[in-house]
């Protein structure tokens, strides 16, 4: 090669590296500014997670409100408003929580122990915390230390405090004193964004909180740093899914929150947008009403469990197999340590008609129609129910599909005499005790077999991880043997982003921090 050519080659390579590097780092360098327009499924009922566990309430309000702890991308609990994981006494009865100092609320008040005491007290009085802290003593030991004294050990307290769906958010003591137990519609929190405006029925607007003091840790899952790159976030209520998607395609919106699975193929093929799958999402299960005399017959339940062929049912329900995963594990893998793919797996996704028929024949089933409750307001529920009825009919069951609008469906579900099976998405949790349909106080009226309940009771008093994993393995196996519910798939949640929007860290529930626009 001549000297001129080699020099040209070197210069070309240098320029290429510069350009490519510039492009890569140019794209990777977050830009401050702009407004993110997120099309959400509807107007949230409140911005107060203590009073409503609806996902949309949690996902919108989490931009302004924070927790003592949060989960990283591996499902491990990390400190957020707390400075460290709690110190737990040897008898498991006393938790000492130290708070980070100098953390401002949106109104300028600095976080102290009184705020945490007031918030946890409210949480246990009217919210999810009732199941855990109802009889606990919660006190401020000093300005930055809170102690919780339990009447009996709870193995999952730290986990609950660090679980978004647990909704143990921290308000100011002053706001709680002012509002009391009614919903707080103008939350004052410590989050990277503060509420600017809420036009009921239209949109919720947050603006950057310049005084935000975050955790000094790498962003991971719901934990770590929260960079508020965006000036503001508009959560715009767009109930119609086709309109949300059309708005994303036309550039009206930047995010289609809860995109339809049927749009996934288009989203993947488009250069203007990309899908974002939120995992683990929910457990899509056939919830059995154990108060129903028909469903109290174990052999009938076993026959149903044997008849269900999960993959075609889920594919028919969701329309795309990228949005779900078949797994026998009730606790999803993404939540880490308590996931178990083996216990009870032989009773998962049997899909054997011959076996189902044999079990049914021996069960004494007299042909009473099984009432499958469903709603067309959620098409994945409705389609899954149609397929399940078809599969179980082939095994010899009579099925009656009870189709109602959503409000009526919820009302019927509260009546233990009015339904037998309901197929739908149910919230899952990092710890089995936190999964509602495994408890005895939920709408499925599940008392649990002796084997299951004894293991769960022991689990609830155990905090040692290895012991918990062993107990849960036994409990999960017992749950499958008892057919507490029919486990089907882990269903992910799909969001769609415009290509100009960049998200830095994977999350469990929607977050617009660590997000920037070109």
């Amino acid at each position, binding site marked *: 090669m001549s000297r001129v050519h080699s020099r040209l080659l070197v210069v070309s390579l240098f320029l290429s590296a510069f350009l490519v590097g510039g492009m890569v780092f140019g794209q990777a360098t977050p830009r401050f500014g702009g407004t993110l327009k997120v099309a959400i499924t509807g107007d949230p009922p409140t911005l107060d997670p203590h009073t*409503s566990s609806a996902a949309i309430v949690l996902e919108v309000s989490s931009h302004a409100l924070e927790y003592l702890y949060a989960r990283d991308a591996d499902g491990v609990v990390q400190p957020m408003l707390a400075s460290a994981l709690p110190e737990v006494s040897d008898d498991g009865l006393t938790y000492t929580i130290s708070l980070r100092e100098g953390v401002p609320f949106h109104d300028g008040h600095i976080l102290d122990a009184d705020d945490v005491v007031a918030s946890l007290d409210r949480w246990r009085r009217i919210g999810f915390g009732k199941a855990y802290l109802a009889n606990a003593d919660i006190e401020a030991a000093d300005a930055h230390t809170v102690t919780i004294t339990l009447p009996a050990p709870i193995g999952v307290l730290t986990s609950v405090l660090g679980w978004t769906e647990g909704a143990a958010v921290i308000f100011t003591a002053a706001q709680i004193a002012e509002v009391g137990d009614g919903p707080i519609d103008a939350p004052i929190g410590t989050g990277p964004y503060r509420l600017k405006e809420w036009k*009921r*029925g239209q949109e919720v607007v947050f603006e950057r909180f310049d005084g935000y003091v975050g955790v000094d840790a790498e962003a991971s899952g719901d934990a770590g740093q929260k960079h508020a790159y965006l000036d503001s976030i508009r959560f*715009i209520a*767009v109930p119609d899914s086709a*309109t949300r998607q*059309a708005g994303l395609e036309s550039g009206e919106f930047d995010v289609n929150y809860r995109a339809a699975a049927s749009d996934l193929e288009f989203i993947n093929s488009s250069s203007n947008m990309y899908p974002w799958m939120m995992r683990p999402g929910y457990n899509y299960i056939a919830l059995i009403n154990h108060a129903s005399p028909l469903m109290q017959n174990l052999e009938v339940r076993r026959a149903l469990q044997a008849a269900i062929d999960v993959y075609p049912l889920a594919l028919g329900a969701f329309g795309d197999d990228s949005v779900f995963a078949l797994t026998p594990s009730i606790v999803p893998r993404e939540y880490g340590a308590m996931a178990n793919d083996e216990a009870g797996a032989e009773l998962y996704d049997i899909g054997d008609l011959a076996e189902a028929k044999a079990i049914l024949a021996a069960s004494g089933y007299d042909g009473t129609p099984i009432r499958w409750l469903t709603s067309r307001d959620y098409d994945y529920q409705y389609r899954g129910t149609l397929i399940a009825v078809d599969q179980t009919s082939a095994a010899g069951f009579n099925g009656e599909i009870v189709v109602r609008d959503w*409000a*009526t469906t919820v009302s019927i579900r509260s009546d233990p005499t009015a339904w037998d099976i309901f197929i739908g998405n149910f919230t899952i949790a990092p710890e089995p005790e936190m999964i509602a349909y495994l408890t005895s106080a939920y709408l499925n009226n599940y008392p649990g077999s002796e084997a299951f309940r004894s293991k769960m009771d022991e689990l609830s008093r155990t905090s040692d991880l290895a012991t918990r994993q062993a107990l849960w393995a036994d409990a999960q196996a017992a749950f499958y043997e008892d057919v507490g519910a029919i486990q089907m798939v882990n269903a992910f949640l799909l969001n769609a982003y415009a290509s100009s929007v960049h998200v830095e860290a994977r999350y469990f529930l929607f977050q617009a921090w660590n997000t920037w626009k070109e």
Partner: protein
Amino acid sequence: MIAYVARRLGSMLATMLVVGVVVFFVIHAIPGDVTSALLGAEASPAQIEALRKRLNLDQPVVVQFASWFGALLQGDLGQSTYMRTSVLGAIGQRLEPTGLLTLLATVIAVALGVGLGVIAAVRHNSIVDYGVMFIAMLGLSIPTFWLGLLMIMFFAVYLRWLPAAGYVALAESPIDTFRYLVMPAVALGFSQAAVIARMTRASMLDCLREDYVRTAHSKGLRRRRVVLRHALRNAMLPVLTVIGLSIATMAGGVVVTETVFNIPGAGRLVVESIQRRDYPVIQGAVVAVAFVYAFINLVVDLSYLGLDPRVRYS
């Protein structure tokens, strides 16, 4: 005349009260309540029961009715259980987009309908006449939501001329308000334009055959003057009734349009309130709609006075 108007206003009030009573008992007979929307899908039965108590939903229906009706008689429509704002305020906030949408749709429907109907009548049995009637048939056949989605795909997604969905308040930017409303207004008004066009054509054909029209022609009046000033004015009497009904129909159809185009109007509020079982809003909105229907009828009846000097009200 004043006595007539006073009597009509009185009967409007009575109608609204009757409508309110009927809708109260009808919606309370439907299963479900607002707790599922407020608490989320997985609230425990204990949480649901506690909230029902707090909202007095556990009271007997008759007790709830007495409380609501007493307030209604004082002009108080109550407070939205879901939004925790006054019902009157919630409806009032949404009147602008719904009102503007209905107005724009009416202008489009009347301008298109009357215009096409006159042209078809004047060019009776020609290709123009057949073309207009074909368009009218399309208008009657195409559902509003389908036309709306088609327009979104073409004008918003493909051409990017207009926004796909949403609304901008008049005070913020009138131009943007128009941009956001033009597609929904066309989607809503197109089918009513078809109805008005057919009525206008039929009514004009009757009038154009009348002796006074022949007299006007023979007196040398220009054709445009005869058609627009003489024939159309008389043809408008039945057309006005149809326009009144069309406005009422569009006020009902605005529900679908507002949902497809995501306009935060009164129609969408009613649909969402029904889904949520937000009783005070449903009751208040239906009473308000009854008032609007009755008021439009009154305005249409009074407008006959301007059109036809023979009409008298006493």
